[in-house]
């Protein structure tokens, strides 16, 4: 007697749970019952759960009966000839989907050799242990699992050919790699996912060596010649948007070149790229401060006087200009309207990004690095056959991370490039490293993949033989051009008069509470005072009332807020933040009285 639940709802009991479960399964495989139901017999509590609702993660497995798979050679032939499809196999009951519950009742063989009488299912491929992104790492079974995860995460950040209609799209922060390539060392997933249609890296000649330490601590060295020939070059797209908002009273924004009378008019120079319609001319190079879309807005508050104002309506300037550090070429302009029916102007900016020092690169094995130097081709090391590496990778990256797949890919890439074929690096089913070595030997190279190298600067032969080959390298989206920022003087906040925060606002880097403590701990108190001078003010303080006074320009006199002219007033230096605190105390109803005394 087992209780039966359908979608977690009790429906009744059955006397023979074993045959009930197998009957349901048979009916499903025959096609009498839909193939998306699953049944699970929990033997511990003797309950049967039938599930048919949505939202269960399920995976396909080959059905096994009496130690033999239902998938036969004949099926495979038919699949190859295109007479059968996946759906047919599911319909025929050769393959079925299991959910987490039914898996508990299944015994799944990992590969055909493991099959016994008691097995119920077999994996379609051993590689199904990993996800799609992880399966893109070639020779992944040579690695620690954590490196595979890092490797698949890195691939998600790589630049490539993300959409063929990119030139019509208005994506935020889109990057397109120039001349993307299909990897020489591929996995089966690359074929299955049509990777050739959207590749995201390039096959580079990689040498594992040091070059004056420019690749220490996960650096990579790039060959300037390769860069100039277009290696890893990309284009960065970013949109600029402006809409004509509607306000109460029938007032509306207007996209146009602003009049000189407009409130907040910038310099004429900033509007110089605008065409008559108030939008930049295509292919114009715009920089920080330049207006991309000219716009004016109606005045904020209509006072009675304005209606009689003869000088006409004074509109506000509300153009969209580039912020600090931004630049680009106006690539594409779209005029449309948004959901509310307002006019919407979108301008896409384009910028070519040539790899430079500080750009991030990675192989597919979690071996990311930042460019340390661009070496002129003439100075770069070269092999006896005259091969100059595109990228130099540090040997110290391997020992601690133990990414053997990185080394095997290098070898496989070399074999593939020399033999003119693709190398298969599918998880658990890859070509054997041994075979690759033998093939390399027949191609006329050293079996271990090393070659004799010479220093490009001195022409001297290097003492060690250098491990060199081809690898699929990815350029990642983190580029210095988007991140670099510095400031000495710059904009300040209105309220506190302290420097602004963040790159877009040309902000400073905060010297925080704990950093302050280190100054004090060193006894460098005068240095500390200097560092905190960013909001220094000198204010007149009334010695009678102890309040901050003011300078009256009309009478050229210092005034006390309480006693007017009848007080001694002295200038005192303090931080503006403290002056603000004094004002806030006054607003609390507290009279903060400053008592002055002679400094010396």
């Amino acid at each position, binding site marked *: 007697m087992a209780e039966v639940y359908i979608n977690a709802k009790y429906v009744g009991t059955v006397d023979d749970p074993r045959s009930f479960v197998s009957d349901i399964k048979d009916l499903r495989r025959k096609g009498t019952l839909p193939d998306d139901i699953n049944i699970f017999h929990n033997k511990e509590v003797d309950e049967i759960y039938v599930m048919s609702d949505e939202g269960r993660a399920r995976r396909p497995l080959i059905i096994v009966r009496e130690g033999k798979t239902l998938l036969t050679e004949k099926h495979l032939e038919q699949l190859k000839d295109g007479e059968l499809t996946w759906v047919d196999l599911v319909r025929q009951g050769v393959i079925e989907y299991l959910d987490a519950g039914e898996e508990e009742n299944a015994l799944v063989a990992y590969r055909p050799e493991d099959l016994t009488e008691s097995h119920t299912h077999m994996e379609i491929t051993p590689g199904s242990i990993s996800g799609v992104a992880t399966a893109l790492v070639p020779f992944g079974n040579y690695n620690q699992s954590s490196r595979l995860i890092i490797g698949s995460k890195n691939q998600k950040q790589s630049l490539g050919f993300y959409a063929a209609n990119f030139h019509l799209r208005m994506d935020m922060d889109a990057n397109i790699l120039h001349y993307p390539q299909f990897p020489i060392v591929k996995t089966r997933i690359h074929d299955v996912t049509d990777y050739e249609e959207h590749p995201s890296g390039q096959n580079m000649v990689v040498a594992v060596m040091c070059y004056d330490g420019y690749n220490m601590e996960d650096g990579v060295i790039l060959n300037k010649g390769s860069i100039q020939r277009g290696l890893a070059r990309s284009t960065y797209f970013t949109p600029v948007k402006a809409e004509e908002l509607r306000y109460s009273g029938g007032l509306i924004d207007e996209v146009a070149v602003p009049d000189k009378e407009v409130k907040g008019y910038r310099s004429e120079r900033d509007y110089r790229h605008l065409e008559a319609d108030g939008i930049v001319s295509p292919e114009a190079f715009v920089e920080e401060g330049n207006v991309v879309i000219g716009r004016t807005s109606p005045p904020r508050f209509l006072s009675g006087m304005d209606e009689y104002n003869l000088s006409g309506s004074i509109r506000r300037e509300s153009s969209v200009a580039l912020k600090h550090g931004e630049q680009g070429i106006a690539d594409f302009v779209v005029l449309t309207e948004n959901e509310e029916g307002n006019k919407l102007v979108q301008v896409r900016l384009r910028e070519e990004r040539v790899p430079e020092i500080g750009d991030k690169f990675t192989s597919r094995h979690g071996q990311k690095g930042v460019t340390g130097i661009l070496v002129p081709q003439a100075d770069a090391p070269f092999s006896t056959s005259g091969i100059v590496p595109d990228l130099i990778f540090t040997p110290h990256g391997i020992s601690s991370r133990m990414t053997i797949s990185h080394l095997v890919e290098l070898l496989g890439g070399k074999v593939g490039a020399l033999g003119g074929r693709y190398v298969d690096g599918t998880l658990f089913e890859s070509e054997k490293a041994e075979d690759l070595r033998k093939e390399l030997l027949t191609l006329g190279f050293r079996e271990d993949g090393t070659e004799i190298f010479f220093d490009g600067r001195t022409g001297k032969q290097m003492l060690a033989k250098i491990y060199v080959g081809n690898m699929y390298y990815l350029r990642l989206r983190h580029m210095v051009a988007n991140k670099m920022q510095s400031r000495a003087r710059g904009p300040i906040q209105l309220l506190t008069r302290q420097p602004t925060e963040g790159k877009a606002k040309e902000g400073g880097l905060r010297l925080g509470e704990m950093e*302050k*403590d*280190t100054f*004090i*701990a*060193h*006894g*460098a*108190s*005068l*240095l*500390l*005072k200097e560092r*905190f*001078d960013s*909001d*220094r003010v000198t204010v007149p303080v009334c010695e009678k009332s102890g309040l901050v006074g003011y300078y009256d320009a009309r009478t050229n006199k210092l005034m006390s807020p309480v006693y007017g002219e009848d007080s001694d007033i002295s200038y005192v*230096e*303090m*931080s503006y*933040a*403290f002056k603000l*605190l004094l004002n806030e*105390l006054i607003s*609390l109803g*507290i*009279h903060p009285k400053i*008592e002055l005394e*002679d400094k*010396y």
Partner: protein
Amino acid sequence: MKAENAKLVDTYENKLPFSVLEEIKNSVPDSASKENIKTILEETFALYLQAKINPGECVGLVSAESIGEPGTQMTLNTFHFAGVAEMNVTTGLPRIIEIFDCQKTIKTPMMEVYLKDPKIENVKALALKIKETKFSEFVTSYSLNIFEQNLKVTLSRELLDDHGLDVKDMIKALKLKAKGFTMESDDGSLTFIHKGKPEDIKDLYNLKEKLKAVKISGLKGIRQVLPVKRGEEYIVLTSGTNLKEVLEMDEVDATRTICNDMNEVYQVLGLEAARQTVINEVYKVIESQGLNIDIRHIMLVADIMCASGVLRGITRYGVVKEKASVLARASFETPIRHLINAALEGEVDALTSVVENVMINQPVPLGTGLPGLITKLK
């Protein structure tokens, strides 16, 4: 040491600390000549001057950083030593917070009771003697008879024997709580009968609950006892504390027995003992975490906690409340309340410490900011 040499050492009375002089007196052999003693004293004095902290060095902040930085590596977990015959102890950051905040009730109050005669039998006897035992622990069954309006309690013979008690002792202990009832004792059982006319059955039920909590033996607050071997001798570890009564017991070695609740130590033994408890307990945690902090940093914090003459935690109600500067107090926690109270009292901030001066951007009176001109310009 010869008397004349000792005299020579005493000439340094105002230059070197007493303990250093004592050490010299005790460790220098009698054969040392006058010249030897002289050089020893000179060298010691030079080293002593070197070890002295310079004026304007901000020891407090250095201590704060020295404790704070390794503190970030401390685990938040309290470890449970599964299977080991030790009790669970709060360690790590929660314990450090507990100590520095000087919390009135700590999570795992404990004592280590040393004995004057640490024989294993004595230790076991003491453990049983001090453990707080309630009446309910002796009971094997209660039976409430509704018809006869009585409550019959069966007691465990073994447990009674273990504690060296019999039913008569029980009656003595329960007398106060069982007012209005007569007790009849049988061999290993007690029967309570309502005096006068039988009333509500609830009375009997209430009586049962009341009896459960009656303390039969032991000291109040000591929930658990565990005899353990410490080095060569046996001691008693207790969970729950009652330092005062334990110290009063004859067999207890009062000079070594310790308690980890600094407030209780302060109450029983005074401020100096509490200070030492704070230092020891903090150091224990730091050691158990495998960290290395100079003990003088902890001593400084403990000194600050004791500086006002009573034990205070480093909280806004404790040490911070004692700060002289309004601005410094306001910058810690609840600024508005501090400012308003200061305004009501007309407090004056002399701007003599660190935080205030950072706020108004004036040189901090430490390090390079400390020296100033003494001569006043006219």
